[in-house]
């Protein structure tokens, strides 16, 4: 299928290597602008192919996530194993500040339109709605996926992306209607700066977190996180929304997890549950406007079942604004 600019989720490719059973020599797709091979070589990413990848997955399932090296220079295996063992484990590693944007920036692009039909074009005008209310959102970049930003724009948000270590006060100075906490790599526990930020934002502005953002919320609310044996990866994880009883098929990519028992149940409500291993997938504050999910509702890749969370975010904002006006009104009175 090759690659195309529309489907990129980051300005850089963050993988060290790609391991596959078979690598397609050609790209065959109407949107493809560059073959996978060209793309990967442009980003200097080696591809290891013709590998029994199923055996690899089974191995990881049995022994847990592993560190590894890919080499092409004939280094003896024993040396490579030693090298891999010397690599730092993800546990205890703070990576968000390494991948975050250096400067704040404005994001204004919504989701791409796949080719519409002549019929859609004819219908287009009739369908476009006249909604105008805009929300000002500050998005913390801990390693953010661009589709989150696109979906925020789709939901009428004016988005400013800020570096991971932006303080709560600096963020609030931007007069946001809501704050978004992004996904990102690494162990959440050492990212104490972010935990502090969230604590100080809590109750002052609606907050929505995804993935690492969710783990940081868990920590900020007094909970603990732990490392999963081999993490959750892929686009077929069933997650039950405990508030509605409905199941969403979700995209996931995380190695750490919030321990729900560590959270103060008086303040925090568990909202989502992974049906495969019953780990925590979402939470919300019982009285203050904060909610977060462990999985990737922005998908890309993955199913769109959880897009409703973005609407929930803007609804939370609207509600908060309204109640804020009431609060202010009461204060004046």
């Amino acid at each position, binding site marked *: 299928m090759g690659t195309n600019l529309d489907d990129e989720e980051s300005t850089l490719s963050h993988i060290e290597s790609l391991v596959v059973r078979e690598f397609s020599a050609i790209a065959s797709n109407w949107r493809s602008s560059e073959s996978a091979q060209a793309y990967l070589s442009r980003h200097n990413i080696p591809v290891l192919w013709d590998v029994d990848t199923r055996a690899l997955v089974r191995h990881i399932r049995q022994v847990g996530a592993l560190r590894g090296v890919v080499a092409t220079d004939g280094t003896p295996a024993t040396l490579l194993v030693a090298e891999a063992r010397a690599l730092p484990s993800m546990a205890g590693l703070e990576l968000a500040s390494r991948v975050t944007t250096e400067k704040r920036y404005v994001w204004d692009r919504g989701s791409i339109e796949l080719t519409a039909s002549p019929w859609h074009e004819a219908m287009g005008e009739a369908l476009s709605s006249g909604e105008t209310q805009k929300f000002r959102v500050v998005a913390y970049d801990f390693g953010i996926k661009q589709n989150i930003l696109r979906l925020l724009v789709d939901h009428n948000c004016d988005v400013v992306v800020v570096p991971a270590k932006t303080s709560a006060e600096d963020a609030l100075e931007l007069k946001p209607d809501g704050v978004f906490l992004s996904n990102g790599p690494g162990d959440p526990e050492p990212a104490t700066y972010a935990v502090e930020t969230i604590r100080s934002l809590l109750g002052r502005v609606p907050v929505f977190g995804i993935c690492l953002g969710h783990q940081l919320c868990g920590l900020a609310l007094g909970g603990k996180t732990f490392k999963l044996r081999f993490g959750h990866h*892929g686009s077929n994880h069933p997650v039950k929304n405990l508030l509605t009883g409905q199941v969403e098929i979700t995209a996931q990519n995380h190695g750490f997890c919030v321990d729900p028992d560590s959270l103060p149940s008086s303040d925090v409500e568990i909202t989502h549950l992974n049906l495969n291993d019953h780990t925590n997938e979402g939470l919300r504050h019982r009285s203050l406007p904060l909610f977060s999910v462990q999985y990737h509702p922005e998908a890309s890749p993955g199913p769109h079942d959880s897009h409703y969370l973005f609407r929930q975010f803007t609804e939370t904002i609207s509600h908060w604004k309204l109640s804020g006006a009431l609060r202010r009104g009461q204060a004046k009175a």
Partner: protein
Amino acid sequence: MPKRTDLKKIMIIGSGPIVIGQACEFDYSGTQACKALRNEGYEVVLVNSNPATIMTDPEIADRTYIEPLTKEYLEPIIAVERPQALLPTVGGQTGLNLAVELAESGILERYGVELIGASLRAIKVAEDRLWFKDACRKVGLDVPTSALVNNAQDALKLAGQLGYPVVIRPSFTLGGTGGSIAYNREEFSEAISHALDASPVHEALVEESVLGWKEYELEVMRDCRDNFVVVCSIENFDPMGVHTGDSITVAPAQTLTDKEYQRMRDAAAAIIREVGVDTGGSNIQFAVEPATGRMIVIEMNPRVSRSSALASKATGFPIAKIAARLAVGMTLDEIPNDITRKTPSCFEPSIDYVVVKIPKWQFEKFAGSDPTLGTQMKSVGEVMAIGRTFKEALQKGIRSLEPSSPWRAPADAPVSLLREKIATPRPDRIHWLFVALEGGMSSKEVVELTKIDPWFVQQMQEIVAVNRRLASVTVETVPEDLLREAKRMGASDEQLAQIWKTTPAAVRHRRTKAHIAPVFKRVDTCAAEFESFTPYLYSTYEDEDEVEPSDRPKIVILGSGPNRIGQGIEFDYCCCHASFALHEDGYETVMINCNPETVSTDYDTSDRLYFEPLTLEDVLSVVEREKPQGVIVQFGGQTPLNLALELKRNGVPIIGTAPESIDLAEDRRRFGRLLDELKIPQPKNGTALVPEEAARVAGDIGFPVLVRPSYVLGGRAMVIAYDLNTVQEYVAQAALMGPARPVLIDQFLEEATEVDVDALADGEDVVIGGIMEHIEEAGVHSGDSSCVLPPVSLSPSVLARIRDYTKRLAKALQVVGLMNVQYAIQRETVYVLEVNPRASRTVPYVSKATGVPLAKVAARLMAGRKLRDMNLPVVETDGVAEIAVQDYYAVKSPVFPFNKFRGVDTILGPEMRSTGEVMGISKSFGRAFAKAQLAAGQRLPRKGAIFLSVSDHDKRHVAPLAKELHALGFRLIATRGTAAALEAAGVPAEAVYKVNEGRPNIVDLVKTGKVDMIINTPLGRESFYDEKSIRRAAIRYNIPCITTLSAANAAARGIRALIEHSFEVQALQSLHVKKAAAQQLPSSAD
């Protein structure tokens, strides 16, 4: 949500006989649904007319009715059983249509029966093309422009507006019957009239063509809490224009990005919600324009389908089983995934392999039919192959088709021929594609000509490139890397042997020396993310093996491969039974098969399932890994039998009748000598390799003679020859067809009655399972003949001889297991036509009719148990043990696919052409026959006009029949000769013109609905062609057409029964109640 407790008894309607477009996949889905509902504690009432199914085994449902699938038979069943609900979504289009009929006629309401799984409204929205399009547009989805028409003028006008080519789809037909694509006005005129006739409501959709677009299917499920999952995505290798049942298909979809796939997924969710399929599975088809990505919705099936069976086998996600549970109110998240045990079914399977399905066609059975593939499905079966790459799966799939000989292109085919051969989709296109690429045609040109996605063409190019490298070495010089690469791409030893001009054994030897052997990986729904507990395996050339064989005593059962005419569901039924019986006896059972439609490839059927081609190489690989105590080859039809001797030579322990005995029975000369020794008569016969020899042999025997090739199943390419010329022509042609194999020439016994016998033997004792009398006379292939059990017209002395011969034959051949003997009885002489020491097509029918599961008993005999220890309900007659037949008749009737093959003559002969069968049971023979006819789609009339035209020979015997019909109140119409014969016998008859005599002729009468039944018995060549048009018209206008006098007599008895009686129904469980008590055979597991 917990299951509903207000329901106690649920009715399931099966899909009836196997026809093109509706095959064993509905036995698989129906069986799963029955088992699932019973496991949840519901009582299940099953109705299906097809005795060859597992679902109609008395253990599968609580109450099993083998009755015609028509409203008038369903109503009394509902009245007796009083189910609270009807599940209409697991019995194919037949089940769904019947449910709609029952609902609309008020029957369901009258008896308080609720439709579960899909509401009447949902079914109608999904099935009605216009309503469906409206529903799609309502949720913002694009559909092809189209309109419904009910007359030719409107249709022509519309086609002009849309621009040619246009697609024509008749409403409410199976497998696209009557559908086509027209490229110009002339083609359109003919096609639209055919389509309108094919539609039961005389309506067709004329639609914008999306020919050449990429075609996709999503198999989706939804529960009553609105949870929605996509079980599997399927991409068609053949682009739009070829019916998906006739397309090579690939799972998962290979050429969509995530964005495009998710758009399709969103569309599917929106559709199933809008249509209102509240619970269960649906199949939704999409087309995508390759250049722009425009996506349109093509259609939806609001039920389990052929594709859902494929998706279940491709992913390990049992759609029908889960759909049944959802229908009673359970939700996806509370149903555990069988394979992982720990995770719920509310997920989307991930696949770390590629699945390829290839259809199996049999145009050679239907002389005169056009093998071009289009919007009407014409394949009779399919294979599925699993590999780690598309290339591997494709090559495994191609060899799973079991070509009788390797496909070879004519040498030096000119480019113009290549272009034509790949541009027009036909069964052999896949082979021509390889030929074109091997010949150097560019991928670009192939894509332009075929519209096949460039990615698929590239994969084929890569296979061709490796083959080229292979051709430059020999079996001795091939580097190990290259050999491994070829095997990893799915090349078989046989293919490599062809390239290297050596034997597969030599390739195997070379491979073993280099330690290149397959490993087996598991189908686990989750790409190894979780541990799997169900050993569902496929071979591949990788590092890690996941077989984990046990050391329990185990038996391997070889399945029957793709469905084809002559080798269908009956053999799969036997294989399943072998597995059930041996599992009950404590063996670990191992199934090998490659047919995704079947119950045998359900991972629930055997302890271990290998989804593999049935070739020597693939079977040996499994056997080497599993090291079984025994391998069963006698249940899967000819496919495993063809492997038997080679397997034995390779040290495989074949159990049951020795392969040598099977071989002896197939060897005419040796078998003839055996019959001589036993002093058992057989028709005079001989063999010939060349025309001159044939002339001499036929001369010695005397005409007419039956001519056929050796070693065949389903009587492929047999003819009855009345003259020397025909014989010589046949032999000359046979010599052209393939390697020198003799042609068999037999005395043809005219006016003989044919009899089939199924028997069990253990090497010491013999038990006759059933004696079946054919209703059509000898000469009609046994698979195409109706038959009745017990016999109705055989004399005691003939029966005694049949019993005696059967017993002696079983002993002489040292049969252990099953044996089928075909006899012809001519003037009280009993001739042996054929002996097959293996399971036969009639085993399931006899088992259902007698209540004794013959295949299960046979499997136990093969494993070493003895008949005398089995406590079978037998009676001794003439010193031979025979399974007792109660006081009722069971008639089996065949079902033909003639409506799919326009222009093909429907006359029955020695070439088998039926695809399926039905059974009618009654205390009276006439009514059992009428029921079977009705179940087979031949609705015998109760009044009106009957057309009679019989051969000169039959004119002597037609009078009693005509008198009976006249007495029943029918008007008789006849051709001049027959009319004169009738007048002479004192029966009034109106004369009518033959086709070539003037007008209005008989065909005009048929077309204008003035004839209610046709009795037309041609014999000899002349009338054969003369009256073809009458029979074709009968098919087209769906009028019963009977082509033998014996069948006509049976029909007369059937009509009398219809007139005299109301509808009688009986459950198998009541029928066999005494027997079940006496028998004490352990019943099948769950």
